[in-house]
């Protein structure tokens, strides 16, 4: 094992000659401070990139009457282990989606809502909501919510629907 001691000693001496303890500590501190500051910035930067609005909202998010659900047809993910904005564990959000606009009673503005379905587990069965305002027959597929929108996911088994605010609609 003498050779191992020799390598370790040489490496340590070489590092000691080239660096200072203060420099090392400074770098570690910088990494910690810089790392801590940059990690939380990521989601903010992403949100800005897509410029998703964050309207003031009120009401029961797991009730069909909630403003975001004006054009929904399905089970609320908030009642299925997920939330309005996220899928329950074990399911995958479909990128291809049904999109509508709903008026937020808090500020009277219309927002664009993306009803991305969560897929990969059988139907959740909780909080079935069918408000379907703006829904069109299936021969207009991009404006119909009667379709299975689990497209582009590994599984086409429908579990529940999210309701994500993706933009501000135009003034009428």
């Amino acid at each position: 094992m003498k050779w191992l001691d020799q390598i370790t000693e040489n490496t340590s001496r070489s590092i000691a000659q080239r660096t200072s303890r203060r420099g090392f500590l400074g770098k570690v501190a910088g990494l910690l401070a810089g790392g801590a500051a940059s990690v939380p910035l990521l989601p903010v930067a992403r949100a800005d990139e897509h410029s998703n609005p964050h309207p003031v909202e009120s009401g029961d998010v797991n009730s069909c009457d909630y403003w975001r659900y004006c054009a929904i047809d399905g089970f609320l993910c908030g009642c299925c282990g997920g939330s309005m904005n996220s899928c329950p564990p074990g399911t995958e959000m479909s990128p291809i989606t049904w999109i509508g606009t709903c008026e937020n009673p808090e500020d009277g503005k219309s927002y664009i809502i993306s009803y991305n379905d969560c897929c990969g587990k059988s139907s959740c069965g909780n909080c079935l909501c069918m408000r379907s305002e703006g829904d069109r027959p299936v021969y207009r597929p991009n404006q119909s919510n009667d379709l299975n929108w689990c497209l582009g996911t590994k599984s086409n088994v429908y579990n529940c629907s999210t309701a994500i605010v993706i933009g501000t609609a135009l003034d009428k």
Partner: protein
Amino acid sequence: MATLKYLPLALLVPGFGAMADEHRARVNYQIHCQGCHLPDASGFPGKVPRMNDFVGYFLHSREGREFLVRVPGVSASRMSDEDITEVMNWLLTTFSPGQLPESFEPFTVSEVAVLREQREDDPERTRVRILRQIAADVPELASELARADD
């Protein structure tokens, strides 16, 4: 700074800046198109055609240009002729400026109004045929199609 935001599009498309509203075009894209074509127009292989860095190739032929308005998603849209025209010109110059021919002229409302009445019955087959024809004159598209076939 709002003026600066509109400047690039206005420079790219003569007349677009004067008539069109980029914000309105983007919102209409979000409501009527991006559910399937996705926010960055990347589409989904085998299900939804990609427009990003691609759709501009269609403007290299008259039939290709007409096809873009005749496809079901556009011709059967709830949007008015004016809004469709605005969205078409916006998405071409936003998502695929590099593929547009130098001679590109923006769509006009009267052109869109006529074309959307001639709905395409077999978009899949027509799309492939038109792209092959254009690829004969546009080597970039030819290599793109060859890569897709691999």
